[in-house]
């Protein structure tokens, strides 16, 4: 359960967040859709406490990120963009490291790592160093890192960027499984297809604020358009920065 309440953030001269409010519930996949430069990444960074909002608040499972930073972070699994792998570590070492960072004992972390690696069918590459991995293998490693400690909330920043069809499928299936298990999945994207195919809820962002929130069907109905794409363009007012 992620709640964002009236966030304002100015970076340099740019109003990156301009009164942003939305919420993402457990058992749903929420897509944060917006053109390039809408403030998606800034929003996620603020959500994780890496950036401090000028005003407003964000909470994860009820923990305020500004005041109860560590507890709040413990409830999140982050799939970042770029992935931030350690080239000299193997996926097993990498994933176990993050499991332990999130409070697991080394025994529990070892077990959880083995489970998540086999869930993502990574056993073959589990003990090879990340150096030289394909984009798909990197994505899987980052994904394993994000979910190894079984957080309630999983936050993904532009997850399908640069992935081939197979990798995108793996990602989609996993997100749907997580949803069924009752996790709260929040991902940012500027790719329409992906959002339309996966999301129960769509938060449409432009210029640092929410333009509309609802299911894809609701958004279509509200704008009186037949396709999602037309609905988005109507909502944002321009088709700039949106990928079909």
């Amino acid at each position, binding site marked *: 359960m992620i709640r964002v309440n009236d966030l304002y953030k100015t970076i340099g001269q740019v109003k990156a967040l301009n009164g942003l409010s939305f919420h993402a519930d457990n058992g749903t996949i929420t897509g944060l859709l917006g053109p390039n430069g809408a403030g998606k990444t800034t929003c996620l960074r603020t959500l994780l406490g890496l950036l*401090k909002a000028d005003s407003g608040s964000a909470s994860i499972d009820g923990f305020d990120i500004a005041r109860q930073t560590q507890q709040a972070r413990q409830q999140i699994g982050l799939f970042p963009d770029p992935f931030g792998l350690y080239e000299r*570590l193997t996926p097993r070492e990498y994933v176990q490291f993050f499991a332990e*960072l999130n409070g697991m004992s080394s025994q529990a972390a070892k077990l959880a790592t083995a489970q998540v690696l086999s869930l993502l069918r990574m056993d073959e590459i589990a003990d090879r160093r990340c150096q030289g991995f394909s984009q798909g293998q990197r994505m899987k490693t980052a994904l394993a890192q994000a979910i190894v400690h079984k957080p309630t909330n999983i936050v993904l920043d532009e997850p399908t960027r640069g992935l081939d069809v197979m990798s995108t499928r793996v990602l989609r299936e996993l997100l749907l499984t997580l949803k069924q298990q009752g996790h709260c999945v929040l991902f940012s994207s500027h790719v329409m297809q992906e959002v339309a195919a996966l999301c129960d809820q769509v938060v449409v962002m432009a210029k640092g604020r929410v333009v509309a929130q609802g299911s894809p069907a609701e958004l279509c109905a509200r704008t009186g358009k037949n396709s999602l794409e037309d609905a988005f363009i109507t909502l944002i007012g321009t088709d700039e920065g949106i990928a079909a």
Partner: protein
Amino acid sequence: MIRLFNTLFRKELLDASRDKRSVMAGLYYALGTPILMCLLFSVLLKQLSSIDELQITIENAEAAPALVHYLASKEINHGEGDKVKAIRLQLSPDFQQSMQQGRPAVVIIDADRSNDRLQSAIRRLERALSQYSNEVAHLRLLARGIDPNLLQAIDVQMHDQATPDSRGGMFLGVATLSIILTLFYAAMNLAIDTSAGERERNSLTLLLSQPLSSLQLVLAKVVAISCFSMAGLLLILVVSKFAYGMVPWQQLGFSISLNLDFMLFAILVGLPLALMSASLQVMMSFMAKSFKEAQTYVTLVLFVPLVLSMVTTYNIADDYLQWLPIAAQQQAMIAFLKGAVIPVPQLMVSSVITLLIFGVCSYASSRLLKSEKVVFSL
């Protein structure tokens, strides 16, 4: 809290140990320097212990065979060819006659005094001539029944307190300098890689999104780097022990021998320095916007220990400098090697200052990691 630190520390150690390039760069220094020093010392000692023959042009040598013979006994000869210095010694034609009559016999040194490269040769010639003059004068007085000691109003006696070991001051300075600098050079590449490198590879933001404090992160990095510095220190101590064992010290009557006691002492004294070195370099790297910039900053910072250590080595230190980090630790190491009294108060104070700097730098780094500008290099 402790478990989190352990996790971070183990990862840093593992990641750094696989960074072959950085580890090797540090170890090359530790391995190469003592061997280089050993060669340098051997050459230096050879130069110090043997007096070179000085070749000059002596004109009218037949006028004073006794003087020429005396000069020859001091390795000053008439010569021809390339090795002859541009110094001409002219003996006046009436040299013998003046000598016999007990009048000052004129000799002229014809040389360019402003030429730096001739200075020591000219002084050597002057010294030899005045010694000869003295000897002849003594003989003349004796021949006239006068005690030549009348000419010596005061008798300067030098009681040399130097023990064989203390005479090697400069050599000890250079040797300890190279040992202390290891703690800085072994850490350099790793410090940059684990901070500026971590940011450049985008893993820093992911790490900072985890439930941990930035101070834990910084401390884990600093301690891990210090481990490598200490490994470098151990290596240079062992290599030095063997390398310095091969220098022909007997020519000067002292020796540098690194025994086990000294090694333990150096490790004890070096530990705070390793922590300071790592924290300082990590802080500088985080302050830089990029990997390249970090390399520039850290190289500049490494100039400070070099200067402090040089000042100690060449003994141009003011009194208050003895209390500063690096200088005091080096003094203590030199004293230990000489078998002299170790300046304990200085060592204690400087070790405390060293640890304080480690604390301040680590805290500053952790503050830096809370800054949006630093983390995202905005």
